[in-house]
């Protein structure tokens, strides 16, 4: 009986020849990522060692990554103090993969990890962030865990008692219509299988549409796999992965492009043809409340957001700039754009995208999680409507439980900012 990609990765990481869904393993961890919530991880980590007579030591400081992104720069003394404590821990334990608040090396963890070459195909990656699923885009098994579980990983170097998840195979055919792309695909999939359709499962992506997709697009679909409940999304690594890691991330060592066996066992197969896919919108207050754009065109929007670990990459900013060039954001609508990393921000500057976006009236913010989770900036007023390229629209997500959040692609977001209402980018705003 053959194995899926994740089964192969877990077999290697736990020193076994064959594993299958339902097996209980303790896989070695290749990379353990946290953001500001490292403050809680540190607390739990020290708790593990308390009264044991042992010195608190991270199993392998070179495999720990900490990236500040949720509240950058700090919005309160409390956050600043948490960040200060984490900085002190990083220095004491000699954690090298640390990205502080910086214009060159800073940014959102789910962009920093791939662009810095921290993730390789076949790796086991854990992160104290649910969107850690993103790194499946590079053929890694990458999943979100809580802070206490991370403290356990920091101590032991492996994840305790992991049950091998069953895998759903998603096969995608066809070429995307113009101004339709990976965000529309993943919203469509979530709408189809529901917000819990992949709970405790992995989504493995196949088909010529995925093969033709850039790593940036693959990061979008793996990122949002968690919105269907998935433990992880994963794209089996291929030549695109190699090209990305060599050219973008500067990785030079050999890469193991783990592939599923021909006779791998899948719990479910979903086939999607994108050649006639409409732009998709997730409506309040659930990510699986997905409708084709036509059903919601005309809804007035007060705030448009482009950015986040889902859609803050250069191609996202490029399409937004192309639709905003020479136009103006509508009166009574405000538009916020936040690039996913300092590197992306600088490239967008060099290519003139930032100028296009600012001339149109949008506010360009520093890289970070920004308004996505309502902790830092870009809060919504009572009863306001936001249209956003981020990943969640739960009640209260952007900080105000009386506001509505709609999710969409960067193209729909940009066209709608100009129109002041949800609009179709294919019709010229």
């Amino acid at each position: 009986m053959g194995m899926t990609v994740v089964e192969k990765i877990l077999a290697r990481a736990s020193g076994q020849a064959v594993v299958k869904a339902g097996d209980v393993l303790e896989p070695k961890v290749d990379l353990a990522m946290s953001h500001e919530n490292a403050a809680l991880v540190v607390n739990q980590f020290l708790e593990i060692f308390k009264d044991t007579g042992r010195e608190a030591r991270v199993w392998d400081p070179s495999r720990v990554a900490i990236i500040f992104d949720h509240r950058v720069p700090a919005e309160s003394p409390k956050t600043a103090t948490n960040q200060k404590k984490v900085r002190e821990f990083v220095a004491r334990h000699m954690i090298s993969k640390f990205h502080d608040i910086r214009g060159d090396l800073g940014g959102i963890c789910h962009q920093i990890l791939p662009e810095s070459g921290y993730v390789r195909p076949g790796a086991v990656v854990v992160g104290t962030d649910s969107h850690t699923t993103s790194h499946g885009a590079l053929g890694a098994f990458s999943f979100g865990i809580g802070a206490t579980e991370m403290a356990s990983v920091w101590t032991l170097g492996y994840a305790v008692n992991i049950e091998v998840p069953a895998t759903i195979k998603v096969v995608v055919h066809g070429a995307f219509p113009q101004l339709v792309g990976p965000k529309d695909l993943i919203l469509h999939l979530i709408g189809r299988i529901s917000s819990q359709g992949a709970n405790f499962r992995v989504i493995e992506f196949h088909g010529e549409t995925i093969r033709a997709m850039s790593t940036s697009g693959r990061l979008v679909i793996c990122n949002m796999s968690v919105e269907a409940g998935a433990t992880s999304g994963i794209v089996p690594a291929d030549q695109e992965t190699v090209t990305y890691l060599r050219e973008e991330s500067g990785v030079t060592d050999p890469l193991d492009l783990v592939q599923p066996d021909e006779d791998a066992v899948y719990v479910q197969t979903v086939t999607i043809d994108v050649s006639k896919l409409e732009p998709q919108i997730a409506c309040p207050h659930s990510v699986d409340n997905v409708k084709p754009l036509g059903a919601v065109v005309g809804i007035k929007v007060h705030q448009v957001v482009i950015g986040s670990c889902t859609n803050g990459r250069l191609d996202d900013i490029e399409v937004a700039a192309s639709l905003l060039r020479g136009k103006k954001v509508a009166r009574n609508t405000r538009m916020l754009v936040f690039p996913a990393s300092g590197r992306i921000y600088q490239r967008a500057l060099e290519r003139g995208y930032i100028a296009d976006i600012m001339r149109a009236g949008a506010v360009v913010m520093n890289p970070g999680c920004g308004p996505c989770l309502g902790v830092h900036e870009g809060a919504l007023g009572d009863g306001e409507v936001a249209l956003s390229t981020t990943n969640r629209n739960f009640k209260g997500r952007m900080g105000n439980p009386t506001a509505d959040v709609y999710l969409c692609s960067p193209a729909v977001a940009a066209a709608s900012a100009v129109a002041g209402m949800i609009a179709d980018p294919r019709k010229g705003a």
Partner: protein
Amino acid sequence: MAQVVFVVGDDISTDVIYPGRYMATVLPTETPQFAFIDDAEFNGRLRNRQVSPGSIIVAGSNFGCGSSREQAVSTLKGHELIIVARSVARIFMQNAINLGLRLVVAPGITAAVGDDLVIESDRVLNNTSGAMFPIEALPRARQAIVDSGGLIAYTRKRMLEHPAL
């Protein structure tokens, strides 16, 4: 026997249980004040200690979906609440087991505020309505952590099995 004090529907996210704007508060001793804070009535009852420890929240499917923030578990654990849900999102379930929040998955559960439930090893009995609901076992991989009293104790034990570095 324990009383149902709060009933919620499907897809209750961690943004609802513990909104992101309180995420700078991390310590389990400090998070309980913000439980379900956007529901002023229920949060008020929790803060004013009008909800006794061991009371039950009944939830629909996919409870705790969304963010991996552990505060969403520690905030409920701080009030010693018991969650009886139709299903639970993966990370929330792991966090609950790791922190010792009592969590029961009963796929058919129906109950109203004020109902009395009896939680047995394999079923939940609603004493008020007379209905019984089978319990789905936790992922077996996690039982060792529950048996150890949570992940901190379990990890400490596993660490001490290795010689000190």
